[in-house]
């Protein structure tokens, strides 16, 4: 229990506590609540009218486009962090700053492209 991983061990313990809190809340509730399931109760709730068709309905493709955009940019953004910590360290300075503007230009270009392609307009 020492060195680099000990702080992550604390995180793991807290995660365990979180699970226990969730399980405990359900357990206490199980002891206190009534349980009287009827077929009517288990019907999907849709304004009190019997549900029509399946619950897993189709949805718009535009949501897919947003998620696609996100994946593209989030992968870029992940690499920003290790760079951010060292970019101003002695010996880097101007070079890394120029590199940052190249990076920003790429992201900005990506958004501009998406905007020009009218991905960001609602149809």
């Amino acid at each position, binding site marked *: 229990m020492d060195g680099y991983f000990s702080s992550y061990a604390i995180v793991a313990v807290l995660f365990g506590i979180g699970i226990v809190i969730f399980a405990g809340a359900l357990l206490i509730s199980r002891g206190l609540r009534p349980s009287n399931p009827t077929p009517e109760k288990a019907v999907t709730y849709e304004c009190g009218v019997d549900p029509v068709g399946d619950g897993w309905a189709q949805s718009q493709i535009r949501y897919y486009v947003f998620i696609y955009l996100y994946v593209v940019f*989030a992968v870029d953004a992940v690499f920003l962090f290790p760079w*951010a910590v060292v970019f101003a360290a002695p010996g880097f300075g101007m070079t890394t700053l120029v590199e940052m503007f190249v990076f920003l230009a790429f992201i900005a270009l990506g958004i501009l492209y998406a905007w020009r392609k009218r991905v960001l307009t609602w149809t």
Partner: protein
Amino acid sequence: MPEVLDVAIRLVVIVIAFLTLPLIIGQTEHKAMAHMQARLGPMYAGGFHGWAQLIADGVKFVQKEDVIPAAADRRVFSLAPAVALVPYLVVMVVIPVGPGLFGADLDAGLFFVLAVMGIGVLGSIMAGWSSANKYSVLGGIRSAAQLMSYELPLVLAAASVAMAAGTMSLPGIVEAWQWWWLPWQAIGGVVFFVAGLAELRRPPFDMPIAESEIIMGPMTEYTGIRFALFMLAEYVGILVLSALTTVLFLGGWQGPILPGPVWTLIKIFVLAFVVIWVRVSFPRLRADQLQRLAWVGLVPLALLQLALTGVVRVLIG
């Protein structure tokens, strides 16, 4: 042995904060919202201005029947509240309240926070999909789209702070903080807070939940204790967002006269109040307005902040 005891005390404090502070925020919301709308809010439970209202709600929720719809995907349905709630508890381990007062100092703290908070989002997508309810599916997909869009400005604004401080450890960031970071990181701070608000799906960004049109979205089918846990997750989320904004942009425990932890708590509660205030003041954004705000508004602003941070840091340091 003293080491183990030390860790145990830290964890106990975190769990107590996790279980009580969200209730205080919730009660503040009840009362502040009521008074802003010229109502009284809860007045009976517990006697003095209804202070025990949320405890009474909790007691009520625990005794309610746990109905799982026949059409639902049972296992995913029953796990979803845990996926929504537990990540926020885990995030609290790295948030520093004062010098040396934190659960654990991870050197990749900021990265850890962003990564783990992203998991909480899965809870509402899981809930929406597994309910097999049209409203829930709609809500779940709206959640997914909204959280994807706002994750990017959130991450970029946070990266700006890491650049300014030269570290990703949260206590390290607070120690590096100077008062002039306030104007310097102001854009990033606003972007982070607004994007965080959207991540929590709080009004005016509550399109996925929209109780007046899709009946609480992903949570439509939830009853009793599972629903209560979702609600708890929302308020813990407010706490975590306020605490993170405090630590990253407002200098955490730094402040004159008063001791550090008091400053942290004051800043957290002021921000939590702003969250409530915003809820009362603004109408809900439409789905397309939400997406526009993220991609046309916040992302370019966050990029601007990154450029500003980089230039100032290199020219000064």
